[in-house]
């Protein structure tokens, strides 16, 4: 392929880096919420619909996050479709966003919602600490992986632009 068309291809991608990232983050948040609902609430039945010790602010925060996650899933995917039709899709960047969104949601869910606001626990067993640790460590790992992907792309982009 000629260098010119290659250049054009990257131009579109470069001018939409942020949109790639946001599409990934939104979809990641939605994915984490969807996974939480289907696997932990419905299939395993570890999570409860409502827990007597839930605070009011917890109920409000849970409600907002739940409705936002539906919007994020659909909106993120439409942004993905929008990037494709503009030929500006950058999958590495998108996946970085997905990891950030999923990890961020899980960390917020695992610390603020489960522990601080006591919306419900991961599982109603004696040794819930192990579940909490595992839950939050996985979340942090996903955030780190997502950050690495995005930082690498940023420096890549800067290099390309200086050339």
């Amino acid at each position, binding site marked *: 392929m000629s260098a010119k068309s290659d250049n054009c291809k990257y131009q579109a991608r470069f001018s939409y880096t942020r949109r790639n990232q946001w599409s990934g983050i939104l979809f990641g948040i939605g994915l984490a919420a969807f996974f939480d609902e289907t696997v932990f609430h419905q299939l395993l039945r570890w999570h409860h619909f*409502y827990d007597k010790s839930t605070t009011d602010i917890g*109920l409000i925060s849970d*409600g907002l996050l739940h409705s936002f996650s539906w919007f994020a899933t659909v909106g993120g995917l439409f942004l993905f*479709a929008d990037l494709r039709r503009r030929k500006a899709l950058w999958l590495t960047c998108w996946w970085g966003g997905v990891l950030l969104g999923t990890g961020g949601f899980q960390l917020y869910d695992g610390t603020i919602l489960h522990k601080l606001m006591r919306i419900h626990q991961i599982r109603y067993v004696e040794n819930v600490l192990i579940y909490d640790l595992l839950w939050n460590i996985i979340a942090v790992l996903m955030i780190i992986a997502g950050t690495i992907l995005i930082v690498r792309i940023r420096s890549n982009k800067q290099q390309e632009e200086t050339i």
Partner: protein
Amino acid sequence: MNINDHIHHGAGDLISHKDGIVPLLILSLSFLLLVVMYIFAANLSSRRYKQWPLHRTVLWSLGVMCAAAALIGPLANHAQMDFTDHMISHLLLGMLAPLLMVLAAPMTLTMLTLNVRAARRLSRLLRSRPVSILSNPIVASLLNIGGLWLLYKTDLYMAMQQNILLHVLVHIHIFLAGYLFTASLIYVDPTPHQSSFVYRAIVFVIALAGHGILSKSIYAYPPVGVPINQAEAGGMLMYYGGDAIDLVIIFILCFQWYKFTYPREFSH
């Protein structure tokens, strides 16, 4: 026998038996009339202009059927005795029927059917200040979700079961507010006062959250006169049923954004 059961049975008699067949007949006929009028207008418009899409007629008929099922027949009778059935009928009347009917573009069809002078008057009405305030997404959400909070978090639900006039008014409000809410978010009919996509998205997320929080609150603290097991089942139904219907609205809203951003940014 539980006092709540007694009240609910009393309300069951309120519409279906004591007052006889006349109100039911009037209600059924008006629903039938809504469908017949739409089909008549669709035929008229197809003959005068281009073919009115069949799927809109189907959507309208389904929407009217949903509203009818919530108000007359076995489900409506059960709804006065059982809170879970009440919630099914409210999902039909306040969410599904309005969504289907908004998608049928009744205002566009009315405009095509009316003569020029009447159509102008109608479009002036649609552009008027009161309509612009009512069709603002925030106002529409407050009327819709705020109305539900009043119904389930005050004694209104209990009072509605004992007073026929209140019962009718609450149901009219639930349908109209549901329609207004849907129409303020997705633009199918011509909408003179349009809000930006982001604005509608933010309002919608907050409104849907209000709906979800109310559902969980009903689950945790049952409304006056509702047994706990029915409140739990009804609350969960409201939560997940509301999600399902609102997901369709989210999809249409995002799809409209997707189509809207295409031609403008590609033309230059």
